């Protein structure tokens, strides 16, 4: 695979400007994890509309009879998927594969990806955001809780790193 990536400082400057553009135009930063919650809400609404309405957490996505998917962050996430696709395409990095370290099997990696995803989805709702919606956005606003959140993300990952070294190294 082509692993020649752009210099991270340059990416950081561009990402900072994108974030600034978002603040300048919308008065808010970027984010994505709420999209997955909205997708879950839309799924429940499709299968069991009454239950979706009865759930006090999902109900807020449907206030005024709107579709839970008609939201700013959902469109941002769609855009991010397209942007990622375009970048991977021009760098010749589109490839069906299971990304993992050399000493872990495919099925173990997929189970861990599922576990990590479920945990992240839950955690992002609890913290009201993820690494973009809380850490990037909130830290840029100098929001107190977001800085604490960001430190905790790194603390949690560093504390776990040793136990899962076989997955990555």
């Amino acid at each position, binding site marked *: 695979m082509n692993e020649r990536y752009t210099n991270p400082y340059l990416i950081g400057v561009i990402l900072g400007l994108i974030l600034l553009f978002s603040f*300048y135009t919308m008065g808010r*930063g970027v984010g994505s994890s709420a999209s997955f919650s909205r997708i879950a809400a839309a799924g429940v609404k499709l299968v069991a509309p009454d239950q979706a309405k009865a759930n*006090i957490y999902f109900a807020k996505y449907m206030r005024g009879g709107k579709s839970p998917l008609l939201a700013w962050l959902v469109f941002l996430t*769609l855009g991010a998927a*397209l*942007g990622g696709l375009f970048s991977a395409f021009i760098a010749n990095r589109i490839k069906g594969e299971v990304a993992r370290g050399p000493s872990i099997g495919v099925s173990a990696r997929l189970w861990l990806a599922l576990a*990590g995803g479920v*945990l992240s989805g839950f955690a992002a709702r609890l913290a009201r955001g993820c690494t*973009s919606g809380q850490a990037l956005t909130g830290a840029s606003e100098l929001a107190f809780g977001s800085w604490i959140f960001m430190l905790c993300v790194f603390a*949690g990952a560093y504390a776990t790193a040793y136990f899962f070294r076989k997955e990555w190294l």
Partner: protein
Amino acid sequence: MGPLYKFGWFDFAYSLQLAALIGFFFGFVLERAGFGNPRKLTAIFYLRDFAVLKVMFTAIVVCILGLLYFSIFGWIDLSRVHILPTYIWPQIVGGLLLGVGFLIGGYCPTTSVVATASGKLDGVIFTLGMVFGSLIFALVFPLIQGFYSSGHMGAVRLPDILKINSGIIAFLVCLMAVGAFWMAEKTEKKFGNKETLPVGSANIKRTGATLLILLGLILAVINPDRPVFSKSSVPVISTEETEQVEPSVPKAGAPSPNQFKIVDDEGC
């Protein structure tokens, strides 16, 4: 004057198109940085590649400086920017859990989208996992809503907590960033793989670091919190407070489950 949307420059439908555009560039640069690759993302936790720290911290510093300079030039009204409210306990626990999920799963929410787009099956599984995790959260929400709204401090910012103006905070963040980058480079040299790490000229790095510190220092001296720089009739800080505290009054005042309402929790 920004934020343009809050001043009625365009409507909701246009804001959604703008979201897709911002998202496109967001996803594009994440993939450019290699963040569709979980081994690249998790390498920071094994001290081999600090791209995650460099990208995040650079972006944060650029945006902090940009917002404060924009407000000094009168280009943006910071009192109309949505400040994320602090709920300290759920943020601490959620942050720790997200960190664990990041390490086990190999992605954070946005990077998993990029990974999915570039064809990684583990990225697809992680993304589906997040939908499922959000569903679990919504199902158990009645049980944990007390904790979810605990530690509410309103829309507090570091300047409010530390009681120093945001210019000085910005300067301190610049210093912290330069220090963190320096340590990251040192550590990478020791543990990292020289073939995959990006090369960069030491001169550009030095110039960048000097520029950051200089821009921070200017902010620290001129103090962007002074009401002179706020074009609105009310000083910045007080409007921020009223705008943010007002909607959360029902939450703080009446924690009874029947009246519980989530106000403006768009989060990430």
